[in-house]
């Protein structure tokens, strides 16, 4: 536990060279390849990319929720507070999941058990990790519902998930994630995608304020650049299983270096440069099939800057500043 008390910039989580594959009927899907990342204490790291880029698979690898088979962790290490999670037994992982790493999902409707009240579900998490009486666990659950700003938490604790609105359910999910004894890392997998925009704003604000209050780190998985800009400290951009750019949030939006990042930002209709413009600068083509992908840069077939080398070799890291790196042979300068 001494490690905790070192500097606040110490790495809470470090992923080294992670590759995750899935065996499907049509062949092997290389969902994540050679991914490395670090999350510091109390920071918000956003993992951003379009569907199929491997961001959710990465999140699920961290707390051991990849179904094996069909999934395989090909190689890599996931080091959480100095220990490699990939070498833990299922029992040890259960403990770490509940105690130090919690997770919230995209669909708050299907992520809560329909036949138990939400108070009961949160209380169950307490009971798993603490030796306390049932009544106390329930009253702690009510406290948490209050903390996530659910109105009249005592009565709401006795509600079933289907009796709550989407926003309420996501609040309940967050409360459940906070029921871990010492939340160190919260993984949020597209936490607001299923919600309306006014509710999304409330939930994002709640997550940011809770993060500060509890002192945890947040790994935010999203496809929404707006959500990233609003909440992240640092950003990793993924494309077709690869990390292509990593930067603090200001550098990334200010000076995107990877052609894909630039294309992604240009694709946003809300981009300031489109005031009065009649067309968007879209990225042509489609995401490559992960079954047939080769060792080159996966973006090469859509990239306006791609050369021959891009199609055969995936580039190494090019550091641009202390907090900004790109993986590209011909990055944007």
């Amino acid at each position, binding site marked *: 536990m001494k490690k905790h008390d070192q500097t606040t910039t110490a790495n809470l989580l470090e992923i080294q060279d992670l590759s995750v594959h899935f065996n499907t009927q049509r062949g092997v899907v290389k969902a994540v390849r050679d991914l490395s990342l670090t999350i510091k204490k109390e920071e918000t790291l956003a993992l951003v990319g379009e569907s199929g880029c491997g961001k959710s698979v990465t999140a699920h690898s961290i707390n051991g929720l990849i179904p094996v088979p069909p999934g395989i962790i090909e190689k890599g290490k996931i080091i959480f507070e100095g220990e490699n999670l990939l070498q833990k037994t299922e029992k040890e992982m259960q403990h770490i999941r509940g105690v130090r790493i919690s997770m919230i999902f995209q669909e708050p409707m*299907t992520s809560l058990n329909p036949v138990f009240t939400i108070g009961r579900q949160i209380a169950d998490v307490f009971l798993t990790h603490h030796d306390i009486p049932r009544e106390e666990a329930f009253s702690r659950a009510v406290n948490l519902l209050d903390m996530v700003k659910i109105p009249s938490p005592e009565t709401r604790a006795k509600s079933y998930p289907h009796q709550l609105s989407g926003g309420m359910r996501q609040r309940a999910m967050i409360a459940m994630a906070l029921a*871990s004894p010492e939340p160190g890392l919260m993984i949020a997998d597209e936490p607001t995608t299923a919600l309306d925009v006014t509710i999304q704003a409330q939930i994002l604000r709640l997550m940011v304020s809770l993060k500060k209050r509890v002192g945890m780190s947040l790994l935010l998985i999203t496809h929404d650049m707006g959500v990233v800009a609003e909440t992240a400290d640092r950003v990793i951009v993924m494309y077709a299983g690869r990390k292509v750019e990593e930067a603090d949030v200001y550098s990334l939006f200010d000076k995107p270096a990877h052609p894909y990042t630039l294309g992604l930002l240009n694709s946003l209709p809300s981009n300031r440069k489109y005031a009065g413009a009649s067309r968007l600068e879209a990225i042509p083509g489609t995401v490559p099939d992960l079954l047939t992908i080769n060792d080159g840069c996966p973006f090469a077939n859509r990239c306006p800057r791609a050369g021959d080398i891009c199609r055969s070799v995936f580039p190494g890291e090019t550091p641009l500043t202390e907090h900004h790196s790109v993986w590209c042979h011909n990055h944007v300068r």
Partner: protein
Amino acid sequence: MLSYILKRIGLLIPTLLGVITLVFFMISLSPGDPARVMLGERASAEQLEKLREDLGLDRPLHQQYFSYLSRIVRLDFGKSITTGRPVIEEIGQLFPATMELAFFAMLLASGLGIIIGVVSATKRNTPLDYASMIGALFGVSMPVFWLGLVLIMIFSVGLDLLPTGGRMNIRLYMETFTNFYIIDALIALFRKGDITYLGSALKHLILPAAALGTIPLAIIARTTRSSMLEVLKQDYIKTARAAGIPEGKIIFRYALKNALLPIITVIGIQFGLLLSGAILTETIFAWPGIGKWIYHSISARDYPAVQGGIIIISTVFVVINLLVDILYSVVNPRVRLS
């Protein structure tokens, strides 16, 4: 919730009316003259005429129908042609035997079926899973009457362990109160301290219950497995795992309670089907229940008995399905609270 139950009960009435109507017209319009059947081939024309008049068969069909309806509302199903006793009395006597058999068959089927299904689902794609599912597949493909004969061939004829039929050793005389022999035998056990009755009743029950329970057992095991697999894929199971809830608790509390919902429905349907499946089983095991009785009534063209038997079994079937629906909605908060 209450209004839902009342509404369901309200729907019961037209369905039962439909059943009664259908049975009445099917039997009335079927070829064959009941009076001729009752009196035999050698009856004279005058005798037939007289009997038809007595039975009301000479009146127009719609009059017959309404008088039939009004009698059924008073639970008067007429008299059996073969025995001459009121149909409702016969049913009252035979029904407990069938219920007893069906109940134990169902107990066996649902208890074992759920256990096998859950184990199969959690040990998916292991030899254990394959073995149980192949076994279940054989179970649903089995002709029940043949299974009954094979069981008799092995356990009664071959090994001489269990009786071939009946409800109790004919040399034993037991006082009956409820006509549920297990209950009556238990009463005998407490009053006289004599366990032979219970032993004999149970011994007679084993083979028919096993034969009758095989198909539901297989169906329940298969349903449980697929329902469990479906539930285990749900997001909320992922949530529970992510919160560090132990796997055993996830399976038996979180998953099973959800998986039970479709199983309840299946158990209800199967229980209803057992009542009619008993026609075959009871015939093979000489079980003096309502199934065997209906079979004989059909062979003897005993129309009042057939009509009464069918209406009673269908009513019980419909009522069981209703109870299951209500149970389902009590267990499922989504239905209960909406």
